[in-house]
């Protein structure tokens, strides 16, 4: 059961936040002007806070139920984890700050932060999972990093196709051809989950003694957490019709 909880939050993160990462990576392609980019960001804006928190929850589950695994994973991958965190911070701040001042250069600067941060997130996730899954490190780790980044990017495109309209949607549908957007999203989501599960099978998943206390609490909470998220998904189920607060 502990492993199910860990997998639930990790895979949830990869699928949900993976789309935000992909959209951020391809922001210059999807949005050619400041106004367009703002509309593209509106596709992920209501979700990114609720999506990234799945990783915070994963870290919490690791700290409480798998303390030894947490230690080994994090300090054993010190470099990629630090790059991941810095990228995460830069991406988030780009999203938070881009809309706070009207100037064109201000927005361009923070859009750059979103793009750089999203690429940093994708590549460091790739390096991290490549290390866990294949034991690769050093220059050769660039290979899995690039493969996973490509997957995040395609996943982001599929999500953007589901959320955007008109010319922006046509651009996002460059791979899925428009009609197959939901299928593409399901495929890339499936691929991300498979990678996550495979990486999990390579980890020593021995739960600590506190798991017996935390498991029933978390299982009781789980429907509530999913309901809170579902409310967000339901509220913002329609396609983007204009720029958002960001």
């Amino acid at each position: 059961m502990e492993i199910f909880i860990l997998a639930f939050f990790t895979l949830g993160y990869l699928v949900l936040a993976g789309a935000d990462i992909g959209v951020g990576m391809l922001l210059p392609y999807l949005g050619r002007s400041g106004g367009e980019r703002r509309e593209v960001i509106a596709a992920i804006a209501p979700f990114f806070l609720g999506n990234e928190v799945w990783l915070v929850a994963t870290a919490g589950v690791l700290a409480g139920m798998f303390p030894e695994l947490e230690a080994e994973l994090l300090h054993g991958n010190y470099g990629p984890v630090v790059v991941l965190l810095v990228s995460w911070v830069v991406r988030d701040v780009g999203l938070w700050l881009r809309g706070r001042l009207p100037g064109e250069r201000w927005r361009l600067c923070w859009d750059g932060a979103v793009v750089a941060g999203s690429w940093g997130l994708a590549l460091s996730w790739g390096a991290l999972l490549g290390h866990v899954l294949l034991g690769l490190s050093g220059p050769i780790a660039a290979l899995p990093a690039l493969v996973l980044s490509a997957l995040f990017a395609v996943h982001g495109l599929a999500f953007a196709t589901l959320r955007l309209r008109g010319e922006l949607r046509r651009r996002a549908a460059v791979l899925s051809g428009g009609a197959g957007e939901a299928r593409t999203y399901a495929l890339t989501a499936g691929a991300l989950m498979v990678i996550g599960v495979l990486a999990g099978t390579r980890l020593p998943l021995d739960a600590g003694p506190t798991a017996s206390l935390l498991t029933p609490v978390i299982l009781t909470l789980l429907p509530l957490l999913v309901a809170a998220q579902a409310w967000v998904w339901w509220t913002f189920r329609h396609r983007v019709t204009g720029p958002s607060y960001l």
Partner: protein
Amino acid sequence: METVDLARLQFALTAGAHFLFVALTLGLVTLVVAVQTWATITGSPVHERMTRFWGQLYIINYAMGIVTGLVMEFQLGLSWSGLTEYAGNLFGAALALETLVAFFVESTFLGLWIFGWNKLNRWAHLAVIWVVALTAYASAFWILVSNGFLQNPVGYVVDGDRLRMTDFGALVANPAAQVAFFHVLGGAMIVGGVFMAGVSAYHLRRRSREQDFFRKSLRIGIAVALPATLFTATFGGLGFQTLQPAKAAAWTRDVSGLAAAQAEMVAAHGPGDYLPPVAWVQAGGMTMMLAFAVLMFFYGGSFLLMLARPAAHGFRLWHWLLTATIPLPFVAMISGWIFREMGRQPWAVYGLLTTAEAMSPVTGGQVRFSLAAFVTVFAVLIVVNSWLLARAARRGPDAVALGDRPIDVPSPALTF
């Protein structure tokens, strides 16, 4: 510096920055909840505008709390895995509950509050900010349960080379956690109240057109800050009852007390230096007390002044002082935190695990790399974000984008 000192510096800078931003977040969210509740019940347009203005400042500030918090959480596994491995069953359990019971919901609902403006039913929108505020408190509670365990470990047995939880109730009921929670919550209310009063006074001094808006805000700010000061001091006083012997002796410069604490630790753990840095404990405690005294007298007087409408609108020297006091609660918060955390040294878990033992097996080069990366990024972001916060505060309620229809429409797509 040694690797452990670098790692401590890294954690102290991250956690310190996080603590200051989060204090304002906690204070402001409470004020926003109060104002939005009033606006929703009465339909008062000025309170609706107050919700949006103070809400926007709350959100600008929130961003820094999130990003520093993320780095802090992951640093525990990066550089302090000795702590998570040794005490993961207690310390980690409280952290796990924080992320799942509190922060997960807080973050999800914050997105709903920001982007659901004019989209959700107004009562649903009000319910959302209530959930955000309550889960923010819950978050602070669980973080202080984990910190309280480090200060005063309870509810455990030593099982081989690590700790095992025996009493979850004792972990939660730990006085070092409970007292600190109310103390910090009160401190956050001071930060929020003084911020609201100071920003309002700035606009009143500048003869803003928004006299009604800012007089109301000024009164709310002061009316929260003064009782919060007394509340915080009460729990601070109770906190002195829960000090570790070495911290208490360092605070009172009690030489024999320090010697006794040292002798007791040497008897239990072998030779070593088991005393906290006295100068830091003293400086932290004294600064905190001084800031508290200034705040209490100044806000005591301000409470009387604000009741007189002519003073609220026209006493410009007082307005200037109110604005100049905005940093004071932050100073009190951070010095209180230094007092508490420096006074715990050299222990990570008091009397059980030293800070040096809590380190991960990482190299100096690794910590130097991450320290440089985090410090550079956070220094830039803190400057930019604080400037933005001040700018948004100065520009007043007319420039608020939160809850508004966005002004700029995307330009038509170019074809090529």
